[in-house]
């Protein structure tokens, strides 16, 4: 049996299966989509995609398939080439598993929506774009997927389009992603002009890449993966329904930027400027997001900032020149982050739309399955030993500790790890423990298997995924084997310190001291003052300059200054200069005349 044929066939079959709900209604008169058919399609695709993953794990086979070529110029080829390497073959089952669970959950969550089939359709189109991005071997196909996920993100965030904040959030997502796209197009243009190809195999032959295209790629990743500087769209994207937050803004779309950097990492390997930039940017992002998450009170915003923080950590891993480890963190993070969002969705629906953790409490007794899975997800997020997050997160911190790179970035990452533990514990304590503060008359119900099955499946994934992936994939770089005990246990020590800090803060909230605003809390609550500063300042400068150019320049300059006024000003200047020259010393002038005449007469 030809393994290569099986591998290629099953991968392309997966892609074909998920496009069927879009194509079949166009071809047949009677076929109608429904949420259940779409969920079952994605489940089928997941089961099919397990075959190439198994083939890869047991035989290490990778393949690149090139299909039809877009011939619009003679020497520039753009084929539809699909790269089935460890990244795409591992990502497909994970993305499809998470999507299947989210779609099953969404059949309950969005049951009261009039246009639920359109919602599932949008999620399916997003999934197709994301998988296209993953499997692309050339930057053109990747760009198609990149833009596709951006558009679907816009449509899904603004799903409830009558809500003003949802529309602004969708616009924010589009604009910030567009700024990142400038970088991607820059790199694509550079690549096309120097290497004359967009194929990844052919483009990575040079040993030294100049920094400019790498800066472009980093800008693209900053925009798409919400690194510091282009990050505000991610917390704002929580305006979309919870399945959208779970799928797009935690597991799949936001990792597209990091995935781009993983795919193009041969270009980065020898360029230390770019690597250091990634490292420092990632460290700053992870600390900033973790700081913001501590004082948030909306449960979805806490998880959104947590996503932002973990994306910063992935960027740090790219900066350490460890793309495989970054991919491992993407994979494990997908499981527990999607599960955290689904649990929060179950809690929100059970409390009749309440999203503020100040009005939740004691849910451990009321929603046992959901809160148990929430706890498992939080423990995995914190990097509890031997859960999923441990394998990736602990390895990242160990590699960082044993490398001879930026200590400042290391300190920031450790601080962010402890803050992760802090806000996670705070969320757990306020949501699950203590006396209840929920509003009265809440339809608390988790007896539906469409809620519990996805969450428990993802919980199983959160526990097992780390172990499974690390045992089945052979790392290309040797992980650090020996290090001092303190370095080895650094991550767990800072996590414990973070938990202690959270318990202290929680005790303080019980004490009878009147809480007040202070500078640190204000910084964290207003998300670092970033949003009003950039959003208002940028628009204000742009509009001011526009007004100056459009009206003031024409009227003031051409009509006034060039014509009458400036002429009059020039007159005044000449008059003033000559007045200063006219000092009025007649005797001195006569004396100088007489002296010069005497000198001339004498010289003759």
């Amino acid at each position: 049996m030809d393994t290569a044929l099986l591998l290629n066939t099953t991968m392309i079959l997966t892609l074909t299966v998920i496009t069927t709900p879009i194509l079949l209604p166009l071809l047949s008169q009677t076929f109608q989509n429904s949420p259940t058919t779409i969920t079952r399609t994605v489940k089928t695709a997941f089961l099919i995609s397990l075959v190439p993953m198994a083939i890869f794990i047991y035989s290490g086979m990778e393949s690149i398939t090139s299909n039809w070529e877009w011939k619009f110029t003679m020497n520039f080829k753009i084929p539809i080439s699909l790269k089935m390497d460890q990244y795409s073959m591992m990502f497909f089952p994970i993305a499809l598993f998470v999507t299947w669970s989210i779609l099953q959950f969404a059949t309950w969550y969005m049951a009261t929506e009039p246009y639920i089939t359109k919602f599932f359709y949008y999620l399916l189109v997003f999934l197709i774009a994301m998988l296209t991005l993953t499997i692309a071997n050339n930057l053109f196909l990747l760009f198609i997927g990149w833009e596709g996920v951006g558009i679907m993100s816009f449509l899904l965030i603004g799903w409830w389009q009558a809500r003003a904040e949802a529309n602004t959030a969708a616009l924010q997502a589009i604009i910030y992603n567009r700024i990142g796209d400038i970088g991607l197009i820059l790199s694509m243009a550079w690549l096309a002009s120097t290497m004359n190809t967009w194929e990844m195999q052919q483009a990575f032959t040079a040993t030294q890449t100049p920094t400019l295209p790498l800066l472009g790629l980093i800008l693209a990743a900053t925009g798409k993966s919400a690194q510091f500087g282009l990050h505000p769209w991610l917390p704002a994207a929580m305006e979309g329904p919870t399945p959208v937050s779970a799928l797009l803004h935690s597991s799949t779309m936001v990792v597209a930027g990091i995935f781009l950097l993983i795919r193009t990492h041969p270009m980065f390997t020898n360029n230390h400027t770019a690597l250091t930039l990634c490292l420092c940017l990632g460290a700053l992002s992870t600390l900033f997001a973790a700081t913001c998450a501590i004082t948030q009170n909306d449960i979805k915003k806490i998880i959104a900032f947590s996503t932002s923080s973990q994306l910063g950590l992935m960027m740090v891993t790219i900066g350490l020149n460890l793309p495989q480890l970054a991919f491992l963190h993407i994979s494990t993070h997908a499981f527990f982050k999607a599960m955290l969002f689904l649990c929060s969705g179950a809690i929100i629906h059970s409390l009749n739309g309440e999203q503020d953790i100040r009005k939740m409490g004691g849910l451990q007794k009321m929603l046992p399955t959901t809160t148990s899975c929430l706890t498992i997800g939080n423990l995995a997020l914190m990097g509890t030993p031997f859960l999923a997050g441990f394998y990736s997160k602990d390895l990242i911190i160990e590699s960082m500790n044993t490398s001879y790179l930026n200590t400042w970035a290391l300190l920031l990452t450790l601080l962010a790890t402890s803050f992760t533990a802090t806000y996670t514990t705070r969320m757990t304590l306020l949501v699950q423990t203590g006396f209840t503060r929920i509003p009265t008359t809440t339809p608390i119900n988790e007896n539906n298997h469409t809620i519990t099955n996805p969450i428990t499946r993802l919980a199983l994934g959160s526990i097992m995924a780390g172990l499974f992936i690390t045992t089945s994939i052979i790392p290309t770089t040797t992980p650090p084997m020996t290090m001092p005990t303190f370095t080895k246990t650094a991550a767990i020590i800072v996590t414990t310190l973070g938990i202690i800090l959270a318990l202290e803060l929680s005790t303080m909230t019980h004490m009878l001291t009147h809480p007040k605003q202070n500078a640190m809390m204000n910084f964290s609550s207003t998300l670092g003052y970033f949003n009003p500063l950039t959003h208002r300042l940028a628009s204000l400068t742009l509009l001011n300059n526009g007004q100056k150019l459009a009206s003031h320049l024409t009227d003031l300059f051409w009509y006034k200054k060039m014509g009458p006024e400036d002429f009059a000003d020039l007159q005044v200047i000449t008059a003033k200069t000559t007045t200063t020259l006219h000092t009025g010393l007649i005797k001195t002038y006569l004396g100088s005349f007489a002296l010069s005449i005497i000198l001339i007469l004498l010289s003759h």
Partner: protein
Amino acid sequence: GQPDMAAYLTHQQKVLRLYKKSLRHLESWCIYRDKYRYFACLLRERFDKNKDVKDMVKATELLKAGEEEFWTNQHPQPYIFPDSPGGTSYERYDCYKIPEWCLDFWHPSEKAMYPDYFAKREQWKKLQRESWDKELKQLEEETPADGPRTEALPPARKPGHLPPLWWQYVTRPREIPM
């Protein structure tokens, strides 16, 4: 008696609004109910201490000082109920709330899906046209000269009449659409 509405707020209204919003922000600060109750009682005592001040100048100064104290002590993320303006599900379903006159533009095949409603719809519309003048007349008679006192509409006064603006009430959209 009925509460009055006018173009300006009375001193009492301003004080009560300050009290309510400071209680809400206190609730955002003090998450646990027992702690909140303790500080809410202290706040109430502070308001009650000055409740019998008759001098309006002094009362206004106290109110101004109270507003300033509120501004410095407010919570950066106050708790807002989900359906209130600024809340998480405010205006969320407005995209599904279509006005009822769109029903007149439905295709006959679509109208055939709800035969009972559309069979009687013309009669209801005729009833609305007939009672409109009477509703307007009642509203004009019952509104005082310098503007309405409350937002509540009066009930129908004569037997056989319908309450004013009943059509807007009967055809209002659902809160959460199906």
